[in-house]
């Protein structure tokens, strides 16, 4: 559990930095559309991680506070 915690932060930040760098390269090469798609793809991948974590948060809050 504790290993996963710090891992996920670095994973998201790594994706962000990676996308920034690739974006600059693609823009320099004059491929604006691909750069846009890359940004969108990065957001979706991170969103998948975030949704998993939020699901975990909500289910634990439901069990702890006896909601529903």
């Amino acid at each position, binding site marked *: *559990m*504790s290993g996963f*915690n*710090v891992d*996920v*932060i*670095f994973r*998201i*930040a790594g*994706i*962000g*930095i990676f*996308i*920034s760098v690739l*974006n600059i390269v693609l823009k320099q090469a004059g491929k604006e559309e691909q750069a846009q798609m890359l*940004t969108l793809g*990065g*957001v979706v991948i*991170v*969103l998948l*991680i*975030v949704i998993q*974590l*939020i699901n*975990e*948060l*909500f289910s*634990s*809050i*439901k069990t*702890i*506070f*006896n*909601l529903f």
Partner: protein
Amino acid sequence: MEILQIVAFALIATILVVLLKEHRPVLAMQLSIVVGVVIFLRLIRYLSLVLEFLTGMTMQANISLVYLNILLKIVGIAYIAEFGAQICRDAGEGATAGKVEFAGKLFILVMALPLISAVLETILKFIP
């Protein structure tokens, strides 16, 4: 000393969020959501300790557990509404945050209705 771990974790996360905010504001926002969730997930163990203590005290005092359950639900609603509103406000969506807080207040009021009616009935019994 788990507080040291959490503070270190929050500092590292803050540095990463500031690093990302300049070029990728969306990813920075998602990262701050993850930070909030992960810190809460670490605190759950201690939270359940406190709640078990409260339940034990309620049992000892012979108070119905229904009231404690209502209180716990209110605390949970308040926490989750505050969490969502803070994330929205951080992202610059103050209006959405206000709506989330309003929804939280409304649900808390709905949860508290049985308590309010119980208190009113007790007061009315004392008034001849």
